[in-house]
């Protein structure tokens, strides 16, 4: 990981305890900057302080939502908002165990994830917020050499979603499993494949393919991050997938 994260720790110390008392299960992420993977975006991006769920949303939590909002239940959801695999693991997993309760919810679409968050008065984190929070170093004493190794091993192990939410590792912001459990939706997941400048609209997708990837990126050897960006580029809002979940964010009241 070559991202340089400068964090305003004082802010955290002053603000944390008060805010967290009001928001159980969320952590305050202090304002700071991070270096995005794509140099074409900017050299450095400033992220304001925000709240983020400590762990990815679990099956039990999402079940409470679909019980309360029947239009999001697997039988009633509109095809426009979720493809036909939506929550299919609830159906096929046989007996519903306590373990399944605590596993991250997957097979959820972007629309469903967004609706879940707003049901709780929250929202999805932006790509910048998510990347910035995920760049937090692992807390010491968890037997992890580097986040990059953890991610690369996760890619080859291919079994993260069968672990409990909050079981892989905790980072310096107190967040669990930003890597190594499931992919996570972000609000503007498709931002990397669209662009403000319409003249470049055809060029930008190729920014992540082949040779141009090495020219446009901040760290050409940051394979772990490339894959995350490529993943985001391959999905659309109604897609659901076996290894794709989410967590919610909330803005800090000024």
């Amino acid at each position, binding site marked *: 990981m070559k991202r340089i994260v400068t964090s305003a720790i004082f802010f955290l110390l002053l603000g944390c305890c008060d805010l967290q008392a009001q928001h159980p299960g969320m952590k305050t992420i202090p304002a700071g900057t991070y270096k995005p993977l794509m140099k074409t975006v900017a050299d450095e991006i400033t992220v304001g302080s925000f709240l983020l769920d400590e762990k990815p949303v679990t099956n039990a939590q999402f079940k409470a939502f679909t019980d309360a909002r029947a239009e999001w239940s697997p039988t009633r959801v509109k095809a426009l908002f979720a493809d036909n695999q939506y929550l299919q693991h609830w159906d096929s997993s046989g007996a519903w165990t306590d373990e399944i309760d605590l596993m991250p919810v997957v097979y959820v679409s972007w629309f469903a994830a967004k609706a879940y968050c707003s049901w709780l008065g929250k929202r999805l984190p932006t790509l910048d917020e998510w990347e910035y929070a995920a760049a937090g170093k692992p807390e010491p004493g968890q037997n992890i050499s580097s986040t990059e190794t953890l991610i690369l091993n996760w890619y080859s192990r291919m079994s993260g979603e069968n672990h409990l939410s909050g079981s892989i590792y905790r980072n310096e912001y107190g967040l669990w499993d930003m890597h190594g459990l499931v992919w996570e939706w972000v609000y503007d997941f498709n931002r990397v494949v669209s662009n403000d400048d319409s003249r470049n609209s055809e060029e930008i997708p190729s920014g992540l393919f082949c040779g141009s990837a090495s020219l446009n990126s901040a760290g050409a050897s940051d394979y772990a991050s*490339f894959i995350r960006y490529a993943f985001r580029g391959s999905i659309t809002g109604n897609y659901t997938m076996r290894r794709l979940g989410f967590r919610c964010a909330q803005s800090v009241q000024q």
Partner: protein
Amino acid sequence: MKTQHIKKTMMILIVSVSSVLLWQSCTQQEQSRTYSDLTSEVTGEVIAELTDAPFVPARITAKHNTKVIVHLEVIEQPMRLADGVEYTFWTFGGKVPGKFIRVRQGDQVEFHLHNHPDNMLPHNIDLHAVTGPGGGAEASLVAPGKSAQFSFRALNQGLYVYHCATAPVGMHIANGMYGLILVEPLEGLPAVDHEFYVMQSEFYTSGGFGQKGHQEFDMQKALDERPDYVVMNGAVGASAGENAMKVKVGESVRLYLGNGGPNLVSSFHVIGEIFDKVYVEGGTLINRDVQTTLIPAGGSAIAEFTCEVPGTLHLVDHSIFRAFNKGALAQIKVVGDENHQVFTGKEKEEVYLPEGSAIQRISSGKQAAASSEPIPEKSLNERLEAGAILYKQNCMACHMDHGGGIPGTFPTLVNSDFLKARADKGIGIILEGLQGEITVNGSNYNNIMPAVALNDDQVASILTYVFNRFENGGGHIKAAEVAEWRNKK
């Protein structure tokens, strides 16, 4: 001085630019001949037959251009890279290399790329046979559990590599995402008796060559271009030994050769044959009577020859350490009658001792021991299991899989009176090597076996395997015995 130099440079520039222009106009004319005629009618449709290496699908025999529908599934799964070594491969169709695709010049190809729902990652496909942006890469980017479809017209004849081009491209290729697509002339390539598919590639693993267990991808080694494995058809021995390609004497063979890389260029050679014909770089230029042909990373070649005499042909990367130490070897077994007009076999053998020559050792026994960590003693079963793999890696090339050696050249290890008579149980032979005349089970041998750089644990496992599997009275040799012998010297 300076201005003269500039003038000279300008002259060279002008000459070379004009010659490039000249050459371009020629090649353009030539190219227009090999391009498919886009006005030719495409009628009917077929589902493409896809095959795993070393096999090649039958050619499409329709007299007219047709629509060819290709369904290719991306599967990420752990598989064997070498005996006892497992790796999570990313594959086009479940094996490495990916499925062989065969179409004709002018055919319309409707391509479906399916990404298995259990996969972790998005994938796509860049077919070098495609004329269009990214070779289809952008049109085929697909998330796990989804399918993508695009179509292209096969304009140019040739043998082309396809590969995944999703970021990070290097890692997708390093994990096994490549294969070959053949675009042959409408009437097909000339008939031969056998066609085979062989593709070379490298793997960069967290542990060194032969280290057992599940291996992760090592990014630093990939950046440094220092692979632990260079293999033919996706794994050590994938198309050798029991899995060797088989032909008969007198039959003609065409090899469709590819190199997936990701980094190395292959010096492809068949030990014991000369290529009668090579389609250079898989294109339409034909070279004849070739010993070794270069296959660029992301490139191909087609080689043809006829097998005149029986025996085993070794297909190697003649950057030779890759073949004998990293796995870049495949085999064709040719069966049939000898033809002494072509090859006589050994007619005579005499001792040849030039003045002052000395035999170089691979390594002294003591050095090998010094660097090794203490390893706990294994049980008999663990020794036999480890020994079986180590024997294949270190001994099988000469003493053969069955332990019987090669009569007159490499001594047998089966029920060996020579071995059983030795007080050191053979430890000294492995640590020190052996040369000179010996008699084994009544036959004389005069050859050299070099010392083998193995640690105590490995030597113990190999010998336990040899004593138990090859009827030498069984027994369990311990690493401590090897260490004792080594320290005594």
